């Protein structure tokens, strides 16, 4: 039977339409960021502005020293965070996936409980400032994001269902310890899920602004998202209390819409280049079968 190397064109069509629906809003964001502010007031958002105006980016750039530093902070935090997170998470997921581990269910419950119950902002803040004393350090940006129940369960599910038990069995018979099994067999075969969770963790660290807000006073340690969002948050806060506030406070100039959109672009931008790297792990064909036998 002839193997079909051409994808069904209907599928391509559907996926193209879908991709467009995802991308068009970004196009709009970009277009608004380069639209002249007066045009925005007069004509609203358009997909191709009447007058191009790079004012928003110029405005952001004049703060370039801070932005560059914030990029540095965010990149450092993200890289360290993702690597450590993947290690810790997958190690725990591995233990959870071994059916002969008697504490499997207890541990699963231990993890899951944290996904539903939370003590709240204040105790969490106290733990990090009073107990660990990591305020105003990079650790405060890294540690909170290192582990999450969602990631643990996804990886565990993958281990349980996509790694053939026969492989693990044969490793055991060959006398391999759990560590060896984990590092030399399981990890290499889990590239798709590790890449997926790695990607999600990257995005989570990249987009995080809350830890900077709460723990960091030293501007040199602000994350990129916090820096960019500060102006937005200032404006929206003043908006929410506008009716009650002393009238002068509302005089703080609202950032131009184009600037808000430019901030969004600067924030997302780099991530777009990260995807192609991780994508090779999703390609069809990377299967267990190649390793078998």
């Amino acid at each position: 039977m002839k193997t079909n190397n051409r994808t069904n064109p209907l599928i391509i069509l559907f996926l193209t339409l879908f991709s467009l629906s995802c991308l068009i809003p970004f196009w709009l964001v970009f277009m608004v960021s380069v639209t002249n502010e007066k045009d925005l007031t007069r004509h609203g958002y358009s997909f191709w502005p009447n007058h191009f105006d790079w004012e928003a980016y110029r405005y952001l750039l004049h703060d370039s020293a801070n932005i560059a530093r914030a990029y540095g902070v965010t990149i450092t935090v993200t890289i360290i965070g993702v690597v450590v997170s993947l290690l810790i998470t997958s190690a725990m997921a591995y233990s959870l996936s071994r059916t002969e581990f008697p504490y499997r269910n207890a541990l699963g419950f231990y993890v899951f409980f944290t996904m539903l119950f939370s003590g709240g902002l204040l105790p969490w803040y106290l733990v990090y400032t009073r107990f660990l004393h990591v305020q105003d350090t990079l650790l405060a940006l890294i540690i909170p994001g290192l582990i999450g129940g969602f990631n643990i369960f996804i990886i565990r599910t993958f281990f349980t269902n996509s790694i053939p038990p026969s492989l693990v069995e044969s490793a055991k018979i060959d006398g391999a310890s759990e560590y060896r099994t984990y590092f030399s067999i399981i990890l290499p075969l889990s590239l798709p899920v590790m890449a997926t969770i790695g990607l999600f963790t990257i995005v989570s660290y990249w987009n995080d602004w809350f830890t900077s807000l709460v723990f960091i006073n030293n501007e040199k340690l602000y994350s990129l998202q916090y820096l960019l969002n500060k102006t937005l948050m200032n404006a929206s806060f003043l908006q929410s209390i506008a009716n009650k506030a002393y009238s002068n406070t509302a005089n703080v100039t609202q950032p131009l819409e184009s600037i808000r959109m430019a901030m969004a672009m600067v924030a997302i931008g780099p991530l777009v280049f990260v995807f192609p790297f991780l994508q090779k792990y999703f390609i069809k064909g990377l299967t267990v079968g190649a390793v078998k036998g």
Partner: protein
Amino acid sequence: MKLVKRSSVVLMSFILILVLALTGCSSSNKANQEASNANAAKETNASKEPATTDNDAKKLDPYEVVMVYPDAPQSDLASVQTAMNDYLKATYPELNMTVKLNPIDWGAWGDKTNLMMASNEKFDLFFTADWLGYNQQVLKGGLLPLDDLLAQYGPDIEAVEKDFHEPAKRSGKLYGIHTHQELGGSQGIYLDKALVDKYNMDLSALKSGKVEDLEPLLQTIKANEPDVTPLVAPSFPLEAYYSSGTLDMISSVAAINVLNTAPDNFEVVNLYETPRYRELADLTRRWFNAGYINKDALTPGLDAWKKIQAGKAFALVGDMDILANMEIGSVSKAPNASIKAGREIIQIPLNIDRLQTGKMTATMQTISKTSKDPARAMMLLNLFFKDQKLLTLFNFGIEGKHYVLKDGQIALPEGKTMNDVGFYHDIMWQIGNQMLNYTREGEDPNKYQNYEKFNEMVSSRPARNFGFIFDPEPVKNEIIAIDNANKAYVDGLKSGQLDPEENLPKLLAKQKAAGVDKVIAEAQKQLDAWREANGK
């Protein structure tokens, strides 16, 4: 059949016990320590105070006063702080204090300050307001009572503010010091002068102080200028114009109707039920249907001034610039508004505030419970009420570097803009005697004289319930429910998008179901008790 394995339960209990043990020990220890530190500090201060007043030569220990206030980040903050400290050392060496400026972003203010207070972080002077959680901060024990400190260390504060402390008192004690500034505002209409001239508009009808009389003008614009919004919003008649002109406010839903009622009428009513509310709601609806008001008025973050700037608007209901000789119906150039709009704007006041309780708690300085030397903090605050140089440093920065004086007004140094000068903010209204400040270039140089005059006007007409503070705690849940009920209707009614004929009764019904009667009754009860106690 176990839903949850026993080992899980054992594990969880073990963990919970461990957690309780760990946190119980550390935080209660910490809390005890903090409390005892604070007490110790207060005691040593108490023992110090008589010493300093008796013996001037006895020195105070050096102390750093931490000031927490909302502000956008200033890149040159450190140099201004140093300059302030140098100045303090040179001019008030006996106070032996330094200042640490700790501004916090507006967007982070709520979360950050809550956490700071709840985790007993040390700081001294703290800006707050009733719209920034002042009531809760007092209730939860985050602020210090200031009565004694004020009496001892705040002579310059008392010189200007002593009549206005009542509204900031809670349970008989004073917790916040109001900034000395304008005591109220004025609401009215801003008009684009070019359009007024173009159609030779007669503005005399507005002497009535009634916004209804704007209608013929709006009609003219609607008929002849298709691209211009006659009345641009946000800022609607049913907001400050209505409340200031018609009510003495008590809470978000309870008020005294002062329009056409006797001066000794202290009946508390639902402010959505007054005849004037209905009138203005109908009026706004009519105008909305006629196309006088822009349809996107309720968009959060919408800046009506941008529309004026772009030449797309004619009139705006808003807070007036405070000028000399303000009168209802008087037409004058509006300097600040014209700068904001980039074109000539004139203003016509339609209402002038009475002295309201709420205004006095709109901008206050307080001292945190965690302050280790509250006396010193009060001394610093007092300086802001008498020392122009200190105020100038805090508000404008270092002369030559961040500003230059042109004809006695503040201007940017040559070639600099607000964005790159390193230190630029408009927070004079946060601290001290605002009137001692310089004015900015472009502002009326007599701005603060105007304020003083205006204050005389306002303070001569106090609200009937001036000094009365409503305690919402007994009806807290009802207030939340009422606020929730309001959300679906209030915005729509005030912007003209909902028809009052149909929706106002619905709103009132929903409020009744949420317990508005209970709130009104409680407010009346507290008000009557206050009247008795104060002989009103």
